[in-house]
Structures are given as C-alpha cells and as structure tokens.
C-alpha cells in the first residue's frame, strides 16, 4: 500500500496505483513541468530584466486593456446572463430549447471563427458597424471591439452557473414573501437576488478569468495597436515573433500568477456558494 502523502484506507477496489500513476504522470509531463518552465525561465532573469519586460509601459497598457475589457464584459454578462438564466428557467416560449442550446455556442465555436464573425459584424462596413459608423461610434479595431468579443466569450459562464441555483430556488420562499405582503419587485430584490448572488458572482468570476486570457476571438476585432488596443496575450505573441522569448515569458509569468490567484478566489467562492446552498 502506498504510504505517505497518498495514504489511503484499505479498499477492495484495485487499480489505485495504475490510475494514480497515469494521472500523475500525465499531469506532470503535460501540465506541471511545462508550466513550471515559465517560472524557472523567469527566475533566471534578473529582477531589472523582469520588470523591464513584464511591467513595461506597453505591457501595462496591455494588462489595462485585457483586465479592463474583461471586467466590463463580465459586468455586462452579469446583467444579461442573469436575464437569460431567468427567462430560461422561469418562462416558457416557443424555441426555448433552441435558445438554451445556443447559449453554449461560445463553448463550441472555435475562437478564430468567432473572431472573424464578430469583425464582420462590427467593422465600419460590417452588418452592424455600417449603421454605427455615421454616428461616430466605432466598435471594431478599438477597445470597444475587445469588450464585445469578451461578452461573447463569457456569456455561457454566467448563464450556466446561475441557472441551476435559480431552478433550485423553491417556489415556497417566494410564496412566503407574497403572503407576508411583499410586492413582486420586493420579493425579487430582497429574497431572490440575495439567494442567487453567490452563483452570480462565481459565474462572473469565471467569465472574467476566461476573458482575461482570451486570444482568438479578440485579435481580429481589436486594433492590435500597441498602447491602444493590444491585449496582453497578443503582446506575448509579438515578443515571441521578435525572438524575445525572455520578454514573452516574463509577461506570461505575470499573467499566470494572476490567473492562479483568480482560480484560487473562484474556488473559495464556490466553496462559499456550496456552503450557503446546503443550508
């Protein structure tokens, strides 16, 4: 019986060694060791080098764009994702099943396809862009385009996280509020919304985390101009193309650290959400 960290109770089910072995091997070779390469390489840089690469003016603009646009997109998705989840859970209408299936489109559609499609819509001569251009509203090739793309990417996260919680919310709590004299609006604001808040926040956090690192959907519609409309992942690619592997790695390391911090926060959120639900 394997000892130490992986100590387990005796069980008559076999295969622990084999399956753990495969899992740990695959995890190490495919995920952990390659990821560590980023940090090891970064560690090999001097502090000044690292700061020059990871915190250069250009990099800072890129972070600002990536995180800023992701935050705006997550906020938009919070509102409309909640609306969508509400409508899907509470109401019946023709074509509801199709709509529900469509919500997962961003999961299934390749990012590059989404990218060129969104550009076709919002470019100055695009399906929608052509109506907005005369009004002086530019979407494609500006940071606004990035936000639009990230809304697309993050929508399913909010909807799918909120839906089950909304569905689970028993009708009796709303009926109780009604018998106590609350209007429908009061019931929504004071009873329903607080109950789904943890799920909503978790969904937003997931959407945000995904949006920060998004590449394919964004690079076609963003202007990709340094300091203006260049997202952080693009900056990494640009550095690589200029053979500045160290610079690219420094930025990647920064993004990884933030991603892991987000991941940690999301895990905490999900634990919190689970604890509240099991009341």
């Amino acid at each position: 019986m394997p000892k130490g960290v992986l100590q387990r109770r005796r069980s008559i089910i076999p295969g622990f060694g084999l399956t753990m072995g495969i899992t740990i091997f695959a995890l190490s070779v495919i995920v952990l060791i390659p990821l560590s390469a980023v940090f090891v390489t970064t560690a090999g840089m001097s502090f000044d080098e690292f700061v020059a690469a990871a915190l250069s003016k250009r990099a800072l603009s890129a972070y600002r764009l990536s995180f800023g646009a992701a935050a705006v997109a997550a906020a938009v998705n919070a509102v409309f994702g909640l609306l969508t989840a509400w409508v899907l859970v509470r109401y019946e209408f023709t074509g509801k099943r199709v709509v529900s299936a469509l919500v997962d489109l961003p999961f299934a559609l390749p990012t590059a396809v989404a990218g060129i499609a969104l550009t076709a819509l919002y470019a100055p001569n695009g399906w929608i862009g052509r109506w907005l251009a005369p009004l002086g509203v530019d979407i494609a090739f500006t940071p606004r385009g990035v936000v639009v793309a990230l809304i697309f990417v993050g929508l399913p996260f909010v909807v799918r996280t909120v839906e089950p919680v909304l569905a689970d919310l028993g009708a009796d709590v709303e009926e109780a509020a009604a018998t106590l004299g609350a209007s429908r609006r009061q019931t929504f604001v004071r009873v329903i919304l607080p109950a789904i808040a943890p799920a909503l926040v978790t969904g937003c956090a997931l959407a945000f985390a995904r949006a920060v690192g998004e590449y394919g959907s964004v690079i076609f519609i963003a202007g990709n101009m340094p300091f203006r409309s260049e997202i952080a992942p693009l900056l990494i690619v640009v550095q690589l193309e200029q053979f500045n592997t160290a610079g690219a790695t420094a930025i990647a390391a920064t993004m990884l650290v933030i991603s892991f911090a987000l991941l940690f926060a999301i895990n905490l959120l999900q634990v919190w959400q689970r604890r509240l639900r099991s009341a």
Partner: protein
Amino acid sequence: MSVTASAVVKTFGGFTALDGVSLAAREGEFLALLGPSGSGKTTLLRILAGLEFPDSGSISIGGIDMSDRPARDRQVGFVFQQYALFRHMTVADNIGFGLTVRPRATRPPRAEIDRRVAELLELVQLPALGGRYPAQLSGGQRQRVALARALAVEPRLLLLDEPFGALDAKVRKDLRRWLRGVHDRTGLTSIFVTHDQEEALDLADRVVVMVHGWIEQIDTPELVWERPATAFVCDFLGGANRVKAQAVAGQIDVAGVRLPNRAPAMVDGPASAFIRPHEFALAAPGSAGIAVVLRRILRTGAQAALETETGDGGLIEVTIATPPDGLAPGTALVLVPQTVRAYPAG
C-alpha cells in the same frame, strides 16, 4: 376572523383536486383538514391563502369576499411545510420581513419592528436566537421561526401546511402541544393541514375529513371518532377492522351477533362493518361471532395485541385488556363484536 369557502372547484389539467367544497370556520376556531395524499386538503389551504385561485367558487374572510385578491393583500399568515425561511437572512430579519416590506405609509419605524420581533421571539421561546441563520437551527426551531414570521404581520387568519411533517416524533408531540398553547393565547383563527389523524384529533376544535377533493365530514374530534359519517372516515380513523355484515331490521348482523348501528342508519342489505380492535370480546369456539385462529400474540404491559386470521384468510386485529391464559398461536377463538359501525357495502 371567520373564514368561508363556498363551492370551490379546482382542477389541475385533467385531475380534479377540489370538487365543489364548502366549509365555514368560526372566529377563533382551530380547524384541522385531515385526509390522505391527493385529498385536496393542501390545495384548499393554498386557495384560502391566495396562492392558488379556484376555477369556480368563492372565498371570504371576515365576511369580505377575497376571491379576487392576491395573497399579499389577504393578510393571511402561512406556515409552509418546509418552512421556506429566507436562508440569507438572520432569524430576526426573517421574522421582521413582513413588516419591512410594508409601503412607507404603513411601515412601522425600525425600533417598533425590533420590538415586535423580540416579542415574537419570546412567544415562540427562542429569545436568544435572533442573530442566527436558519442553517444553524434545528427543525423544531425553524418551525417556530416560520410561525413567528407569519404572526409578525398580525394576520387575520393563520394557515399551516403539515406543520410537523418534517420533524421526528418526540419533537412533533412537544410542538403540537406548544402550538395549541400559542393558538389559545392569540385567539387567532387557525386552519392546519395534516395526514396524521392523531394530530388532528389531539389539536383541533373541529376536524374536516377530506378524500378525493370532497369533504366527508366536519365535526368535533369526539364526534368524528365516535360517529364517523361514512365508511371512509371510519376506516381512516381508528384502525378499524372491516368485515362483511348484513343490515337486518334496523340492526347489524355480524356472523350471528346482532348489534345496533353506531353509524348513520342504513337500509337493510349487505353492509361493510367496522369494528375497532378494542371493541371485541373473546369467546370459545362454537359461540356466535367471527371464528378465527390466533396467529400472533404480543403482550405489552396492560394489554395484549392479537393478530387473528379468519377462515377465508382475512386478518383481524384485536386488543384485549386482560387476555385469558392459554392463548397461543394456533388457538381457535371466536371474536364477539361489542360495537359496530356499518355502512352500505360497495
């Protein structure tokens, strides 16, 4: 406040939940709606609350027609089966909720709300738990918070849906007694739904026995027990044994034993007779009565419970205060009914 329901009909899809039901509760009365699942009792309760609307029929509370009013305008307190406490609010906030959602004109000041909440926490004997969350309470405590919350808005009518269904036996008994005490103190007209006959008979001023969307009988517990109006009520209450009998010349003939009918009078003909386990006397084989063979005997303290089998395989349960000696499985006996309630067969 008195409550009346008149000729209420409610169907769900093809299923008739209530088939033209009428009932009247007097002011201050504690009424039980008793029946098996599917009898319509919960539907009726929800219609009284305004959580459902009947297909036809009317509801009035305190003499005022409420049929068109939604739940939030009826001033009815409702205690849900699973309590429906607001998980994300403290106990105190739960109880005060109904007061805080009042329109500004009628909303009491914060201090007043806090005072009411404290008062109610005393009433339901949970004075120290105002700051806790529902998840931190036991089932019985949640039950009492749900009640306090319903009482906070000073309802004119209190409706309870299987209030003790989710609790274990000991807690149930204690809470039962306590609820009756609260009712007596507040004098509030209360209607509660239950499928537990012991509960209904123990607590209620009058019992409404329902089955299949219809009211079989409305009477005091004593009358419903002693004089069940229909075979269903008799069967549902008291665990009676059912045997074939014959109504002859105004009396009931059960296997040769003639007795007056404790149920409403019936015309001569075949009958279903109900005899409760304690309503038998034992006799030697050959006497008039029901011939049985003893299958099991369980002596518990002052009584003995006998399981007997008739000639055609029917099971009759008997409880005897002082069983004679020599009773063992396999003994042949005759059961002589002392009291019988019979209804037309079929």
